[in-house]
């Protein structure tokens, strides 16, 4: 297992910080990719941040109401070693299936 830290991303338009409104996941939760993690409020709007990946939440940084700067740690995931890379998926290991049968008269000349 490996731990991955996800910082508060740049929310655009020159915003440098955000206030945590509500955590939508808790430490110990198993989350899926794109699952909403947290609602944060900037000077522009309130937004939900989707999870960048699947994993188990190890730690969330900051309680509701606290301010967090862009680039500071937001959440830490624990991910299994066999998670896919950022592109693509882990191929499923299936038992080999066949439709073709071999038939041959092997003359060992």
């Amino acid at each position: 297992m490996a731990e991955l830290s996800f910082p508060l991303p740049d929310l655009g338009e020159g915003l440098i910080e955000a206030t945590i409104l509500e955590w939508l996941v808790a430490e110990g939760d198993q989350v899926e990719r794109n699952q909403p993690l947290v609602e944060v409020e900037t000077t522009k709007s309130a937004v939900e941040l989707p999870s960048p990946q699947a994993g188990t939440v190890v730690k969330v940084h900051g309680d509701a109401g606290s301010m967090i700067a862009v680039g500071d740690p937001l959440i830490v995931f624990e991910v299994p070693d066999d998670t896919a890379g950022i592109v693509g998926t882990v191929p499923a290991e299936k038992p080999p299936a066949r439709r073709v049968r071999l038939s041959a008269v092997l003359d060992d000349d």
Partner: protein
Amino acid sequence: MSETLSGPLSPAGNGAAAPAPLTLSMQGALNRALGEVLEDNPKALIFGEDVGRLGGVFRITDGLQARFGAERVFDTPLAESGILGMSVGLAMAGFHPIPEVQFDGFAYPAVNQIVSQIGRMNYRSRGALPMPIALRVPSFGGIRAPELHGESLESLFVHVPGLKVVSPADPHQAYHLLRLAGSMPDPVIFMEPKARYWQKGPVDPADAGALEGARIVRSGRHLTLIAWGAMVSRCLQVADLAAEDGIEVEVLDLRWLSPIDADGLAESVSRTRRAVVVHEAPRSSGLGAEIAALVTERCFNTLKAPVERVTGFDVPYPSGDLEDEYIPNIDRILFGIQRVLEHRRG
């Protein structure tokens, strides 16, 4: 030509002090090898897109920047010609670059540096400027990635004089071949079968086994299946299925795609008298054609049938589920075997 154990490696015979074999994914084996190459050689450097802070999109360089510092493991701009061009300069200055091109299809912008400089600098300088560069390229298909993330470029690289090209089939091979590639005086294109990154297997750090040439992964007397990279494990599955029908298939992992172990190929096929070569790359001028020529030149009088090729198709590599039809699957390989078994000389 050498045999390497395909089953669990026994610690017996290594001496009491030898560490026990590990069970690692290919990711883990490559990561461990890179760490040891950096430890052994203070001139070794790792760089590429996202290899530093992120640890690589496949986590092959995970933790190495924290261990060795950002001067030895660092991120580059998204410019493959620059990554390889910088490798040329660093190699000339006495470093041992181990660059990564993030995906096979991203190597195209670097082909000029690879062909015009890296492959021929040693020759051009009469040996004064060797190019000790190990270029890692996550390669081949099988992970449902988008366009230009599933290419099989071996024919391109093998055709360039001055390059060595190698592709590991399992974690043990990956660990030892990368340690070797990272310490060789010649440029090596190291093609990692990304579809096999997550599959775990035994790795014995203390006992590499022979690393030169091809290796026989499974013995059989009726036919030789020739493959490399991710196709080796598929061919082993096919060999199991063929055995149910009474056909004993030998599986040869070519391993080094340049230089090709022609003697090893001939040794196997001269015994089995039949050969099928399997690769993911398009068929025309694929490496299978070269192998068929080599085998025919050396085994013409003993061959019972023309060398059969089971390959990808002469179209751009498809994305999504279509890749299951493009990459040689078990039935297509079995059909290839059947065609060879059925062949009768006129």
